[in-house]
């Protein structure tokens, strides 16, 4: 791969765990992904998938809480996990910026919006207060806030949800970051405002050449925004692919479950939503082997013992999946599901099934390096 194609961010085997009163929370269990310069990665997951911890650890924001972090996070070639706190701080809000889910609680309630944006500018640039303030107004205009002068003097609770989120985005853009991490950026907003914010992010990305990582539970949103999608479940990435491939030929049963259980405008009304039974597992006591096996309709007994590794598909290396089912089996099941039929589980031959299960994954002992 040439230097130009070197990804902006490359995460390698990231593991994060926290000690808590109830036990050790294994938030991330060997997560690897890449973000291209100017590209968009969507990380999709529900509560307890570890997606937010993924974002926070990129910025080093998990450090204060007694977290144990291992692996590598390479940003423009530098390993962020090896940096000192001071070096990380110069990156945070500078080349890597983050916006959070609920702008009402993510903005300081007692400082005016303009002051908060100006503070972001002064954190990384040696400018006077007046210059910072002028830059803040520019940024507010950039994110299409009408009457930026007035809004800058308002407190967050005096603004609408959409304005607040635009304000957060303005704050994040203060130092022209190369990477923007957006953690559920539109979940707390109305649908029309959501559309505006997503359009804004897309426009800013084009204008500034910024890479974006969008973290969300909303598959429709990543379908619209992302080029690459990673689906997370219980601290692991279970499937990773370019957007078109993920939706046209999904490989992991969890992905199938998500796609079939989410109502969309296009589905005919009498097509019943196929719910995934059970609930997402706690990260303290995760199921053994494949974390999804208790909820997977196609799981076999061996899946409780073997951890699936995230592996590229034969013939399509940009599409990876962590599943112990064989590729042809998966293709069969998906084509049945797509046609609206319930697939029959394949007959399990003693040797054949076992052999491919072990080929697709490593034993539990091997995983726990």
């Amino acid at each position, binding site marked *: 791969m040439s230097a130009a194609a070197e990804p902006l961010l490359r995460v390698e085997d990231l593991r994060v765990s926290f000690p808590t009163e109830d036990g050790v929370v294994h938030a991330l269990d060997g997560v690897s992904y890449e973000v291209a310069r100017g590209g968009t990665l969507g990380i999709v997951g529900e509560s307890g998938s570890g997606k937010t911890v993924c974002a926070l650890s990129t910025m080093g924001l998990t450090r204060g809480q007694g977290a144990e972090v291992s692996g590598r996070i390479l940003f423009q070639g530098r390993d962020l996990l090896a940096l000192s706190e001071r070096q990380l*701080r110069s990156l945070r*809000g*500078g080349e890597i*910026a983050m916006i*959070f889910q609920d702008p009402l*609680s993510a*903005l*300081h309630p*007692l*400082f005016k919006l303009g002051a908060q944006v100006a503070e972001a500018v002064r954190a990384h640039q040696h400018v006077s207060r007046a210059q910072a303030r002028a830059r803040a107004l520019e940024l507010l205009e950039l994110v299409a806030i009408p009457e930026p002068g007035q809004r800058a003097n308002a407190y967050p609770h005096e603004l609408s949800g959409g304005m607040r989120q635009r304000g957060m985005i303005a704050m994040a853009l203060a130092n022209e970051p190369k990477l923007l991490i957006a953690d559920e950026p539109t979940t707390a907003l109305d649908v029309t405002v959501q559309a505006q914010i997503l359009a804004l992010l897309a426009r800013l990305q084009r204008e500034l050449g910024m890479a974006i990582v969008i973290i969300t539970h909303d598959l429709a949103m990543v379908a619209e925004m992302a080029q690459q999608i990673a689906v997370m479940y219980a601290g692991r990435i279970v499937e990773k692919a370019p957007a078109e491939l993920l939706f046209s030929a999904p490989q992991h049963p969890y992905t199938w479950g998500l796609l079939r259980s989410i109502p969309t405008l296009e589905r005919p009304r009498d097509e019943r939503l196929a719910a995934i039974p059970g609930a997402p597992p706690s990260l303290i006591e995760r199921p053994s082997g494949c974390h999804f096996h208790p909820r997977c309709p196609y799981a076999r007994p061996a899946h409780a013992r073997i951890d699936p590794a995230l592996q590229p598909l034969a013939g399509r290396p940009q599409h990876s999946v962590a599943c112990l089912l064989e590729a042809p089996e998966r293709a069969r099941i998906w084509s049945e599901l797509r046609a609206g039929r319930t697939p029959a589980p394949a007959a399990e031959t003693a040797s054949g099934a076992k052999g491919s299960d072990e080929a697709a994954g490593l034993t539990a002992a091997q995983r726990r390096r």
Partner: protein
Amino acid sequence: MTRYIVRRLLWGALLLVLVSALTFLLFRILPTGEPARLRAGRNASPGVVAAIRVDLGLNRSLGEQFWMYMKGIFLHLNLGYSYYSSASVRGLIADRLPATISLTVGAAAIWLLSGLAVGILSAVRRGSKLDRAAMGTALVLISAPEYWLGLIALYLLAADIGRLRVFPGAGSYVGLTSDPWKWLTSLILPWLVLAAGNAAVYARLLRGSMIETLQEDYIRTARAKGLSERRVVLRHGLRTAINPVMTILGLDIGVLLGGAVLVETVFDIPGIGRLNYEAIAHSDFPIVQGTVLLAALFIIVANIVVDIAYAYLDPRVRFS
């Protein structure tokens, strides 16, 4: 915001009127003794008692008496006359007020600064040895009675009777205008004693408030902006965490201005608290009535100031 302030001021004025009426009830209607005789003190001549009767208008209707009383307070600031001390209550209070104010304000400054410092450090280093030691000490100081602390302080450090003769002993208070240096040094021990328990309370309060604040989302945003940890804690965290502390400070000062009896007694400072205590001991009725009204006044004012300050500190409150 102005509407908010005006509303609070009007309420405050109304409260003052109500409180004055209440003191009328407490000191004129309820006591079982004859009002004039109660005020005349012991061993009063009949002439004095008769004069007081006229003064209070006891021969008139209750309504007229009430009106005279309210007029007296609000128009003439007349709080009565103490026959025991042969002085107007207002005069006596005016004499003693500066000492109480000096004591209260100085102690407040000390306990606020020390309480804040300890509270912030404990919150930031939660669970560490420093935190545990600080909170343990705080517990001891809260539990220690003021007069005990005061006597220990005198025993150890007073110039006249102490082991290490560092500070002036009890009874050495002088007014600020007469001798500033002596004024200052004579107040250091009383300040420390009065501040000790309060500093402990504030440290614990701020620690709790700070720990809660530091878990809020906007603190995470501040860190994500790349701000130094110090700025995050002191500017973003403290700004919110300090609000409940400021409101309590206002009330504490309001109450203390009504007289810090224990400390004033131990250190023999001529303040309002002592005045009140002595008046009770000598059954000097008018003084007690006057100091009660004064204390109520301070608390009402403190409440108003605190409400306004809170609205200033937290803009979200202004709409109520």
